């Protein structure tokens, strides 16, 4: 995309609006963390798919190691020894529990929090802190970015998102606190610039240092101003200004750690130009960015929303020109169910690309996939009836040896998904007492 002089090389032309080209990983890439350590750190990622799945095409019939992959999971065949399918898990707090309609908003908000979100269109939004953020806050300072929130659907929405629920609940699955959602970055270029700096490297080091010092001085002033007005504010304003203050402190910390980390990180990929036109290219690029962020140890925690809950994305490229959400209300019509299944298969195929990429990337003595724990799934099982039990959930990777993948495991009905999260966090060395509705750790993840 970058052209020198007036010569415009045809081969690097972009297709479509801000489309990007495929980005091979460079061999020159090296993990940025402690070279020489045998085992890389454990990484945690969540990939969320909206509107549920055709469960009879998801859930294998047999259990244990020798199960046959179903139609939806078939694209994951090359990695069947790298993930566990977990059947029986539930998000009971995504149910109405007296709040009426709005299952999509609740599912999205509940997926990583395990908390029943407060039904409100705006004032006093409240759910819980999300699992990824519990880890992010615990590991804060270990990596340049505590966490990464990505999405493949522009969150610009209009009107109400889901019956009486603020759009905040469907726009983000990551929640920094019970009232502060972390909106996903949907532009690959922005993700790249955030990770590897949009800074003008053509400037001389002294100028860059002076600018950095300036940034620190104005952040310092902003913090002072904020602390002075805090006391004069009512509770609602205080909450808002507190978000600001927290952000100021976090960035101050980051600037400091960037200064300590003198070396320039080589991302090993070209800067994406923008959002690719083809959805598959888009999602792959987002997966690439996650891989690079993990590989360079910019962060160890990431979430990716393939779509917002209630997504109306159409998939004409796979023969589903119909909007996803209305189609998911399939009324048990075979034709409609088939379309949903096609979308599920399509997403799984792209997720397989992610796993392949992780597996092909060396990390410590093993691969990045070995050192990762990737949860893939939805907080809705059947999109037609909005069920929140027997959810489609799988967890890939070995968690640095803590997980024993390759199996289909059946759990007691309505085992909270948050029990899984509690176990995964334990493998990251983070032991919260509880996550949302968790009742204890999930067994059988490690044993055969």
């Amino acid at each position, binding site marked *: 995309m*970058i*052209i020198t002089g007036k010569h*415009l090389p045809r081969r690097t032309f972009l297709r479509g*609006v*801000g489309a990007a080209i495929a980005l091979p990983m460079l061999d020159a890439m090296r993990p940025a963390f402690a070279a020489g350590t045998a085992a890389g750190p454990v990484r945690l990622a969540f990939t969320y798919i909206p509107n549920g799945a055709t469960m009879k095409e998801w859930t294998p019939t047999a259990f244990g190691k020798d199960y046959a992959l179903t139609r939806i999971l078939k694209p994951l065949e090359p990695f069947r020894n790298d993930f566990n399918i977990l059947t029986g898990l539930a998000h009971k707090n995504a149910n*109405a529990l*007296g709040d*009426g*309609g709005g299952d999509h908003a609740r599912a999205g908000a509940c997926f990583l929090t395990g908390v029943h979100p407060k039904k*409100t*269109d705006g004032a*006093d939004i409240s759910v819980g802190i999300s699992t990824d953020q519990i880890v992010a806050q615990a590991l804060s300072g270990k990596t340049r970015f505590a966490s990464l929130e990505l999405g493949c659907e522009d*969150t*610009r*929405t*209009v*009107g*109400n998102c889901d*019956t*009486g629920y*603020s759009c*905040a609940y469907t*726009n*983000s699955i990551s929640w*920094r606190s019970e009232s*502060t959602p*972390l*909106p996903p*970055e*949907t*532009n690959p270029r*922005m993700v790249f610039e955030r990770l590897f700096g949009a800074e*003008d490297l053509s400037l001389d080091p002294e100028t860059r240092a002076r600018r950095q010092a*300036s940034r620190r*001085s*104005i*952040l310092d*002033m902003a913090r*002072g*101003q*904020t602390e002075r*007005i805090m*006391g*004069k*504010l*009512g*509770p609602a*304003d205080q909450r*808002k200004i507190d978000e*600001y203050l*927290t952000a*100021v402190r976090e960035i101050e910390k980051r600037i400091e750690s960037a200064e300590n980390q003198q070396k320039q990180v080589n991302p090993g990929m070209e800067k994406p130009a923008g959002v690719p036109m083809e959805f598959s290219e888009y999602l792959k690029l987002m997966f690439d960015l996650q891989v690079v962020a993990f590989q360079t140890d910019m962060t160890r925690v990431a979430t990716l929303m393939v779509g917002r809950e209630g997504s*109306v994305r159409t998939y*004409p490229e796979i023969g589903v*020109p119909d*909007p996803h959400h209305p189609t998911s*209300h399939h009324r048990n019509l075979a034709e*409609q169910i088939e379309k949903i299944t096609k979308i599920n298969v399509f997403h799984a195929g792209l997720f397989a690309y992610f796993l392949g990429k992780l597996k092909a990337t060396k990390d410590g003595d093993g691969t990045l996939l070995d050192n990762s724990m990737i949860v893939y799934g939805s907080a809705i099982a059947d999109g*037609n*009836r909005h069920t929140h039990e027997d959810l489609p959930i799988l967890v890939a990777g070995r968690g640095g040896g803590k997980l024993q993948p390759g199996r289909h495991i059946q759990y007691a009905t309505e085992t909270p998904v948050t029990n899984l999260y509690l176990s995964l966090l334990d493998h990251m060395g983070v032991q919260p007492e509880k996550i949302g509705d968790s009742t204890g750790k999930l067994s059988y993840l490690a044993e055969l």
Partner: protein
Amino acid sequence: MVNRLTKLLRFTPVVPLVWVLGQVISSGQTAPAKPPSDTAFQKEVRPFLTNTCFGCHNAKVRSAGIDLQAFTTAESIAKDAGTWELAVRKMRSGEMPPPPLPRPKAEDLATVTDWIEQEFERADRLAGPNPGRVTARRLNRAEYNNTIRDLLGVDFRPADDFPQDDSGYGFDTIGDVLSLPPVLLEKYLTAAETAVRTALFGPAAIKPTMIRYQPHLRRPPPPPSLTDYDFTGLSLPSALSTKHRFPADAEYVFKIQLNGQRPGGSEPLKVAAWIDAEQVKTFEVDGADLEGMTVEFKSKVTAGDHLVSVSFLKQFHGLPTRFGGPEPSKRPEPARRFPGGGGAPPAAAGAKPPADPAKPPVEAAKLPIEPAKPAVAPAKPAGGNRQVSLAGRVNALDIGGPFEPVLAPSQVSRKKILVCGHLEPGAHVEGCDRKILSAMARRAYRRAITRAEVDELVAIAAKARQRGENYEESVAVALQGILISPHFLFRIERASAPTSTANNALIPISNFELASRLSYFLWSSTPDDELLHVAERGTLKQPAVLRAQLRRMLADDKARALVENFGGQWLQIRALESVKPDWEKFEQFDDYLRESMRRETELFLQDLIRNDRSVTDLLDAKYTYLNERLARFYDIKGVEGQGFRKVDLTGTPRGGLLTHASVLTVSSYATRTSPVLRGKWILENILNAPPPPAPPDVPALEDATVGTTATLREQMEKHRSNAVCASCHSRMDPLGFALENFDAIGAWRDKDGKFPIDSSGKLPDGRSFKNLDELKVILRADKEELATAVTEKLMIFGLGRGMERYDRRTIKEIVKRSSSTDYKFSSILYEIVRSMPFQMRKGEKSRT
């Protein structure tokens, strides 16, 4: 246009501001209030509740945490309006009592819910006035872009790269919902740096890049007629239009790649390139096969979004005579041999033999359009529908740049910032920094600033100089500090209030705060110098001054923001950006059409505001704004070119918002129309009667098999036999069916599939209509509802909070008062900005 507005504002009798405020306050103190009817409660309501609700909602079970049994007196009901509003809503929607419990008799249920609502109203009359609380509002993306533009005179839309803003109550201006994650502050830091540096030192050099645009359709369909088509070619699918963001004032290179064939012996073709509505370049290309042909040109373009189009001028002119097109070619047609057809013309695989050149041209003109049976071996299997290619098509457009960009700072920007008057670097004198920084802080914080605040900024600049920055660089650092300050990024209204304010006290907001409310309401931007000046003098709240400011602000070009941001969200046309109608079914839909749809509605709303028309025009105005593309789409003759103009719609089925393709598209699914969605759209946005959410476990009524098995209408009528569904769908569906003559992208149709359209209907209140025109008459009769809807949405957008029970009186009052002008837009706006909620806030104890 402005004159009419001016007149209205001048001749409306001036009523002191206190009227609205005073009315509400006095009604609270003096309105006679009857005591609640305890007899009715004990005799009718409580027994009903005992039978229906207390089984679960009692002190022991407390289903959903609610104990209704605890409410033992009539008075206690209204004291917990939250609980009982929910109860009424759930009983009415049929959610409660939940199946399988028996449904209470409809009339009993009505008696009880009506009684409860009366209680609310009685309590409302008793309650004191309540202006509500507005949580500190962070600038949203549109506001940030506009504010930076107006403060610094640089317009590069930095916030387009910010994370999306969350919305609530249908708008992205809600303080409670606008959060500030760390990633956003990072962006604020970068944006502040770029904005200040661009303004003071000029834009940074940008590396040239090249972006390619391609049409969705590989092979566009032929035109409907060779004699009546868009001579500019812009409306034809062979053209390509795209919005492109030009990052700088600079030169750009445009490469146009062509494809397609043209019958041998045709005259050369003219390719035209357009930027916005202006034709900037034409090329002549000659030859039967255009594949691989490329033309290119360079042009200087200003920074920002521009619509770039490439088309073929008069592309069906100059064809060989036998095609019957206009101005036939004077060139001889080459004799060629075709497989299986001897000397047949280049009818491509699939066209039927050509008409005799002697035949009348009109008939011949129809020839290439009919999908014909293959006369020779088809290139594609049956149904492939290949047609004669009569002209080229644009295969791709590459836009590369910026080259030789303007890198000098704009003098406008420097003047805005360097108020000391020393525009040449190095000319500054002692004390300049103080002047510059205090002026900018006042404008950026939108209020008078304290000495301490200026001292701090001056100190920041001084420290930067100590680090080795030069004078202007050091001022730039402090300016960046202003732009990341919470006083700039947030509109905090109570920071200056006394800390011991009692809860619920009525506190007038300051003149400066009012100025900000006004400017972010009408302009989505910061107050300008005049508004700040008036606020500083303390006269903004005087009715005559307020009215004059409102008039001035609406006449300003910046008021376009009200159309884009309020209109775009209220009417949901912002969603146009992301709709993806099924390509197979709606091949006409491309980005040019999408853009044209959006413009129509924006210009229509702008006309309504500028010319101060009644909001009822929204329903049935017999005019709109069209360009050729949209006019052809609407089948309206006589509109040529890319530019939009006002068009009379008399004699067409169009008129009013409900027939705008934008509205019809955003209220449809990608593959088909949905009377339910459209009915809901009308109820929410026009009639101010949003339907309650569908009860849980009852999937929303689906209408997927439209036009295939039974008519949609029949299916839905069956669905409505369920009483719970019927309660809402009998309101929604008829409204939506009235629009069935418009397909899912708003094109006119007489049939859906094989079924003729029936757009008649009957509303639950008994009024019936034969078609959309008759429905519009009914809606116009309900104009008070429309005015209420507009008022309520404007209040949510302007105040940045949802509407509550206590706002109802104000809304009612505004609607009543604006009825004297037949709900002219400016009178609604004026009543809003002088109302109590807009000028006051409720006190709140701080947590010191």
